């Protein structure tokens, strides 16, 4: 991608600004460099922070009102005219209300539309099921041509937004409501679409995470090392599609135990994507998926929900101890398995 310099946000900002605010600022910076970027929202310009871009480039920003299907259709037309639309609304209205426009108008035609879906998972927990979105990874990863990214925090969101400008085709970037604590200290950790980041090295078990669970798993890994003497590998699988098969197979081979953690229904999301890779490899490994257990999540503040669904540090520790305690056939002779 083109070198993006002169960004107006700083690491200090990253610690004080929300994920969405950083996204809004990065998009403003990119808008100066790329005149082909246009922005769209559906009466959520303020909530999703794409309004910052709209304030800076009013002639390149379209607030279509509360009409998401129309918004994604217009985005398809704008992309067809040669522009690069960035579209922001809540994940629920992106992937369910407008699923067909995203699939048929954008993905089928392989259009250069970048979708930043906010309030994903249970991040808007108190709003209830209508505003939760624990299905979007499953939906978007079943759309051919779509790239699916779940950044761990605001800095990774900034990296993903910058990387997707020159990444061809439709990209779905899934973020929370914006109050997620930062994980990365700065943006120079080698973010690359489709390449998992090992945020903790380890040899006993691998925790494959995306979004808010990355920070929680990294904390859990430290505690498990200290208290249980466990060597816990944590992978930030920020790109769910295309998934980093190499990193998963390496974890199967080297740690033989994998748990996935995601703020999403356990069906169809990160865990399923990882399970697909493991199953196709023919290699055995202890495996568990942790997420929203195929139900509509309870109402509550996100931290309470993450605790309830075992997605916070304590929950992750509990799950790791469970899996480590399971009978599991240790087989040193990896080579004889097919």
């Amino acid at each position: 991608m083109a070198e993006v310099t002169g960004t107006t946000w700083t690491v200090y900002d990253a610690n004080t600004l929300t994920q969405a605010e950083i996204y809004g600022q990065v998009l403003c910076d990119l808008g100066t460099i790329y005149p082909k970027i246009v922005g769209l929202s559906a009466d959520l310009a303020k909530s999703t922070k794409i309004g910052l871009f709209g304030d800076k480039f009013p002639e390149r920003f379209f607030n279509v009102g509360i009409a998401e299907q129309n918004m994604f259709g217009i985005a398809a037309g704008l992309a067809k005219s040669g522009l690069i639309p960035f579209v922001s609304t809540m994940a629920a209205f992106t992937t369910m209300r407008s699923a067909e426009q995203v699939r048929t108008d954008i993905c089928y035609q392989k259009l250069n539309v970048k979708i930043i879906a906010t309030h994903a998972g249970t991040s808007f927990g108190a709003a209830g099921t209508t505003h939760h979105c624990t299905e979007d990874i499953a939906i978007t990863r079943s759309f051919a041509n779509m790239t699916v990214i779940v950044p761990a925090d605001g800095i990774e969101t900034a990296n993903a937004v910058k990387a997707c400008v020159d990444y061809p085709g439709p990209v779905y970037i899934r973020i929370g409501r914006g109050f997620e604590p930062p994980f990365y200290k700065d943006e120079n950790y080698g973010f690359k679409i489709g390449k998992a980041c090992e945020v903790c090295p380890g040899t006993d078990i691998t925790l494959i995470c995306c979004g808010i669970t990355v920070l929680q798993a990294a904390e859990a890994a430290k505690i498990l090392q200290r208290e249980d003497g466990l060597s816990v590998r944590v992978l930030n699988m920020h790109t769910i599609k295309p998934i980093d098969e190499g990193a998963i197979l390496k974890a199967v081979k080297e740690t033989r135990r994998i748990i996935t953690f995601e703020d999403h229904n356990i069906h169809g999301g990160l865990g399923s994507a990882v399970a697909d890779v493991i199953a196709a490899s023919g290699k055995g490994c202890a495996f568990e998926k942790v997420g929203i257990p195929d139900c509509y999540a309870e109402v509550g503040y996100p931290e309470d929900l993450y605790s309830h669904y075992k997605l916070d540090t304590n929950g992750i520790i509990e799950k790791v101890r469970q899996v480590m305690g399971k009978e599991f056939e240790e087989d040193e002779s990896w080579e004889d398995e097919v």
Partner: protein
Amino acid sequence: MPLSEQDLQDLKEKAWQIRRDIIDTTVWAGGAHIGGALSMVEIMTILYFKYLNIDPNRPDWEDRDRVVLSKGHGGVGYAPVLANRGYFEKNELKEFNHFKSPFGMHLDGNKVKGVDVSTGSLGHGLSIAVGLALGARVQQKTWKTYCILGDGECNEGSVWEAAMAAAHFKVTNLTTFVDRNKLMIDGPTEKVMALEPFADKWKAFGWIVRECDGHSFEELSAAIDYAQAEKNAPVVIIAHTVKGKGVDFMENEVKWHYGSIDSVLADRARKSVDAMYGK
């Protein structure tokens, strides 16, 4: 762009040829949406042979005019127009609907030269057309966008979301048609889900409405000129048409929304079309 006598003659000749090709393609395809393909022949013919600034040798030319066939099931009516305009050879249509053919019932813009937008799911096209028109505006381009809606399609709420947006954003570099053939799959539009007062609905959404006989090149031409001269609000041309136009046993018959024809019916259909043009 007033039509000369020669223009009229040429357009009619093209329309005759396209109707014949629609019949042939329906036979080759083993079945197609022939009724709505025949109702839009004059709209598509006048666009492709009179109005559009396009170059079939450069289908991706960035300054070309864009067309969105929102009633995407009209593919069997669209592909013969593109073949006649020189985008590909007519005999390629023999593969229509067949295994691995670029031509399915709903044309794929990534596979069929000349198709700007892949359509088929109703209610999507006007939004995409509004996006194209806004894209031209943002980039200060003078190319135009044309959108052809079906009337039954206007049951879809998303059409009216797009209509609201086009008026709100004052999209006037877009020319929109409704092929008002008054029939949908299950029956007359007014019986399945009433559209009338149709013109009033568009007016209430901030559009200027121009109604015309959708089979008259003179009336279509006047309506398009009117629409393109208007700079304050989007214009919709409600083109009153006959579903199955030109094939006597299909005209105004609900059952010919989609159908297949054997060689006997095809001969009857060709004779009917020839008679329409005094051939």
